[in-house]
């Protein structure tokens, strides 16, 4: 579904991606692992068109490199950005409606919102509050919820569990898993909490200073010593 080959990218004069390649199969879930500054976020941003990049990015057979973020979104790729991606001056409700901007089915939107609010009771409580008033974790929930509202074909999750309480993180990942089962959405996720990530991904790629250095199925990777040491904490 998504095929990236030899992706390179710069910030100004500094090159931060030096050749990233990975593939997300139809309905698949792929993880990206890597130390701070390895280029994980940059990779996702390159896919959604927020960073200009060279190399090839193909989605459903089409080359999407160089498209604008909203065009990429219109193709069915939703991005949960790193950090506070929420629209602070809009209420929780409005944020969710923005997420559903490209959808036309009013009834479906309403149903999805209700579903989300059940999933995240915090958001229910703060439904009419400005997003900027939410706690860090609540904002993260909102960001995930907004991407969910788009009903994408491919979901890019950048540290979706960042700042979430353990139980909430699990809720989110459970929800993602359910979503995947229900709709067959494919996903590419960056996650520092590798233990959590491995509950959901089929395969993963390890980035080091902007290069993909290793990829394999979850099982393979979990078995490798260096991976366990750096990302899993298993001895």
């Amino acid at each position, binding site marked *: 579904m998504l095929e990236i080959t030899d992706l390179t990218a710069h910030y*100004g004069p500094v090159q931060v991606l030096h050749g990233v390649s990975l593939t997300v199969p139809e309905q698949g879930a792929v993880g990206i692992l890597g130390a701070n500054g390895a280029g994980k976020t940059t990779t996702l941003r390159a896919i959604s068109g927020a960073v200009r990049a060279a190399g090839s990015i193909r989605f459903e057979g089409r080359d999407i490199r160089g498209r604008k973020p909203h065009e990429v979104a219109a193709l069915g790729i939703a991005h949960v950005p790193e950090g506070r991606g929420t629209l602070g001056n809009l209420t929780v409700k409005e944020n969710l409606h923005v997420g559903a901007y490209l959808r036309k089915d009013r009834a479906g939107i309403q149903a999805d919102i209700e579903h989300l609010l059940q999933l995240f009771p915090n958001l229910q409580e703060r439904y009419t509050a400005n997003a900027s008033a939410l706690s860090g974790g609540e904002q993260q929930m909102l960001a995930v919820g907004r991407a969910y509202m788009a009903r994408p074909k491919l979901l890019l999750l950048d540290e979706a569990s960042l700042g979430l309480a353990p139980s909430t993180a699990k809720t989110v990942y459970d929800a993602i898993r359910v979503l995947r089962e229900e709709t067959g959405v494919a996903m590419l996720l960056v996650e520092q909490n590798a233990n959590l990530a491995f509950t959901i991904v089929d395969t993963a790629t390890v980035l080091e200073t902007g290069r993909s250095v290793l990829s394999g199925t979850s099982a393979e990777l979990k078995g490798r010593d260096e991976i366990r040491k750096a990302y899993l904490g298993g001895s």
Partner: protein
Amino acid sequence: MGAQQTGLLRKPWFQLTLALVVVAALVVAPLLLPIPVNQTLARIGVFAVAVLGLNVIMGYTGQVSLGQIFFLGLGAYVTAYGVNSGWNIVLVFVATVLICGVAGLVVALAAARLGGLAIAMVTIALPIIGVPLAKRLSEFTGGSQGTSARFTSAPDWSGLADDQWQYYLVLAIGGVTFLLVHNLVRGKYGRAFRIVKENEAVAGAMGISPYRYKVLAFTIASMVGGVSGFLYMVVVQYTSPETLAFHHSISLLASMVVGGAGSIIGSLLGGVYYVLVPNFTNEVAPTLTSLIQGAILLLVLFVLPGGIASLPRALRRWTRRSGSTSTPGSTSTPGSTPTPGSTPAPAPGAPSEKEVSP
């Protein structure tokens, strides 16, 4: 090439030599240049100081002030009043700076409670109310006919012409002002001002009271404004309510941004812009000055959104980029503009990779 140049620029000995050469040139210049040029240079000095004051409060501390011209005007009035009352000139200078400082302090004590646009609107009131006020207080200000004070004819002992004498006065007073402000914004206070600009909550956590530092910056800006008012009288020797009309404040703001906000050199360039552009447009087409000035302003910012002071940085980035092989990369969405910054090491890396540590 650009990179080498700027590398050289960083060397202390080079900086020192450069500074000495510049100072020497500035000192010798008026002896050789024709009168109108000296007069123009002196005027540039006046407005460079005015822009410098604006930079302190706005460029560094981030408080949009549309009232800076008021302090220039107030300074000019105080100077004129002092001179016409026969005070000693040093006393006049001190009084000018102090009165402007106190006025700035009083305004700031109230205005600094506001932020963002609100402070812009409250400060714009200064010149707007200042003009009718100046007319009303005609005993001190000469009303709408203004008042002139001529105290800068060259003394006989100097052997200089008036324009040279005025130039040296501006150079000396303006130079010292620039030096002091330059020192101030380099260390402790510069950092504090900048964090107040960027994030007041963080400033508080660092032990920096946003309110107090805003008041401080505003007061300093007003004092610098007062200095520029004094220099205005040195050079123009006449002031009227029109001196502090609010659209001059907006021109100052434009000059600051065109020169480079939050930059000392930028202030100087701002002064150059403020003075030379009208001269230039008068040469080109006096009936189209507004049109041409607008176009120039937009053009400069279009090419250098960071102001003229950012030219070296822009050049460096440009030369670097054209040097690198692959596609010129930069973010394509308007949302994220990566600032170039200085990057000594070629490739960034994770901290776990020790090879990148110098």
